[in-house]
């Protein structure tokens, strides 16, 4: 069996996803980072962006993460985010509406949030 790492994706008010994975790709403030089993212990600051988790069953889980941290040690990876949503949970129409609205209001923070959501769905 290939090496696995245990992933916990937690938002401030709930645990979003947890399970075994072979690869996790996330965006930190200094660029995208891919974590595989056996990675050096790491603690980084996340940018808002989609996080891709390749599960050990071969599936892919994509989540939109808005800010937070990634911490990895002893093949245990935790993704902490204030807000995190799985791609399946995202309401595309609503995100698109929010995106348009944010664009017209020139609310850059909201625009980015909506953009991240849409990108997470697109990757998915």
């Amino acid at each position, binding site marked *: 069996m290939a090496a696995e790492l245990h992933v916990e994706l937690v938002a401030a008010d709930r645990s979003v996803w947890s399970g075994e994975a072979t690869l996790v790709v996330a965006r*930190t403030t200094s660029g995208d980072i891919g974590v595989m089993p056996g990675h050096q*212990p790491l603690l980084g600051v996340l940018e808002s962006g989609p996080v891709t988790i390749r599960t050990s069953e071969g599936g892919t889980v994509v989540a939109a993460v808005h800010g937070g*941290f990634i911490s990895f040690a002893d093949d245990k990876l935790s993704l902490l985010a204030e807000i995190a949503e799985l791609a399946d949970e995202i309401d595309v129409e609503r995100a698109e509406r929010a995106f348009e609205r944010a664009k017209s209001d020139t609310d850059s923070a909201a625009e980015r949030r909506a953009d991240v959501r849409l990108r997470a769905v697109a990757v998915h």
Partner: protein
Amino acid sequence: MGAQLRVYKRRIQAVTATKKITKAMEMIAASRIVKAQRKVTASMPYATELTRAVTAVATGSNTRHPLTTEAESPVRAAVLLLTSDRGLAGGYSSNAIKAAEKLRERLAAEGKEVDTYIVGRKGVAYYGFRERKVVESWTGFTDSPEYADAKKIAAPLIESIQKDTAEGGVDELHIVFTEFVSMMTQNAVDGRMLPLSIDEVAKESTEKDEILPLFDFEPSAEDVLDALLPRYVESRIYNALLQAAASEHAARRRAMKSATDNAGDLIKSLSRLANAARQAEITQEISEIVGGAGALADASAGSDK
């Protein structure tokens, strides 16, 4: 119906109505405790992971961050007090206020000025009535706080701790809230959020002497700590808000349960009195009839003779 009896009947009716209300409030509070407790549990993974991360950075690097080092001569401290928006919860709010007063005295004895921040209408009313200065207050969400509320509260606190004390900033951040121990026990406690005392945090997160690995920081230890600490404060406040909400519901349930019990006792004793009054009325009526019949009999017997 006699006047006495009517008075009792009316009081029984009033108490019965009150009992119905308190019973309903008790049951509502009971159902909300479960919900609030579930929220506390749901927020735990985030809090523990965050505490672990903070400990890792604070112990694993030699970074000296203003938020983790104690000021040499602290002059001002901020106290965040969590009370409830609504009353009818027994001593819930007043216990928290009392704990805050104690903390305030202690800080004053140490020669620190105290800036007060308040959550909940009860605390605001208490301070307002005494015309004490409150830096900022928030109301309207103590029943079921959201993470956004915690963020809203944390923002000015973090801002003031990052400011220089000469410009009105604070050196320390304390929080007073009601800890939820169990359905029957809730304690008003105070704790220091910042500056972090590393030992305490370490004690919380690593119970079984777990050795934390040497982390690789991305982008750097300072930046990570910079980003972590505000989140840590938010998460501590969020956790305190949730526990306080659970405690509030538990306190309300208990207060309403004893109110319901008391109303039951009152109804019982009032019905006893009402029964006695009815009996007395009947007895009086009988004796009046007997007396009247006797008088009639006497009168007619006299005329016969």
